[in-house]
């Protein structure tokens, strides 16, 4: 049974983003829920494939807000599904403007995670 764990900096960033971009956060969370539910029925996380899932470096994946109408603010929800202990790590959330910093945070998170294993 997979479960979800948040990084130390995820909560504050998420709360800020949710207040600034309510609809996009709602749509991204909905896509994340779809991903998480599908994860429970597959043998490997890589089998969960959809247009809203974007593979990044080091096994990190970004989930976007696609599926909502109108002209959304491009949103990326960065996660890492650790197959060994069946944990989805919530790393960070951001938009196009914060993409470089978000990816740097992901790199740093993954480095620490690998070190602790």
């Amino acid at each position: 049974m997979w479960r979800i764990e948040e990084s130390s900096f995820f909560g504050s960033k998420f709360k800020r983003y949710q207040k600034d971009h309510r609809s996009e956060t709602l749509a991204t969370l909905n896509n994340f829920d779809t991903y998480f539910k599908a994860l429970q029925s597959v043998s490997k996380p890589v089998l969960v494939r959809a247009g809203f899932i974007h593979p990044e470096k080091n096994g990190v994946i970004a989930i976007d807000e696609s599926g909502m109408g109108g002209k959304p603010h491009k949103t990326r929800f960065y996660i890492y599904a650790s197959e060994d202990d069946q944990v989805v790590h919530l790393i960070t959330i951001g938009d196009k403007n914060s993409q470089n910093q978000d990816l740097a945070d992901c790199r740093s998170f993954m480095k620490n995670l690998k070190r602790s294993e």
Partner: protein
Amino acid sequence: MAYNSVSEMVKNLVEDKEFQAEFERELANKKLAKTLFAMRCAQGITQSEIALRMNCTQGRISKLENSGIDGIRVGDLVLYAKALNLQTSIGFETDIKTVDRVKYHAFQIKKHLDQLADLAHQDDQIFYGVLKFYKEYLFNTLELFKKSFDKLTKKVKMERPVLEICTPTGEENNLFIKNANK
């Protein structure tokens, strides 16, 4: 902080109750579409592959897997399931009590076991296969029943006597019931 579901995570991270409620409504509305998506992923099939099997476009599959309950037709479900080599069953229920539901499933199990028994008489090999299944089924069912019974009685602290006397008349069973009722 660890969560078992995205709903749990949202409830913990978002203070805005209206946001929480809107998220729950969205999940309920897309429950069926999410199930379709999970079933396809479980078989390791891409949207393009299932589209080919259903003789439609990949875009249509994408739309179907992101539809609310109003956007999915029964015909779509049947075709989608067929493309995954699955059978579609639709159930209708009145607001029945849990005990009636247990009885209903018990009768359904009896019906399916009878079907197996009928099938078993066609051939010796099938007969022994079905017989093996019946034994496994009985064992597994008793195990499940035991787990459930343990859950039921876990709050009742049974005082075990130092000397236990078992009578052939089954009086110890009556004693057990009396203790459990205390």
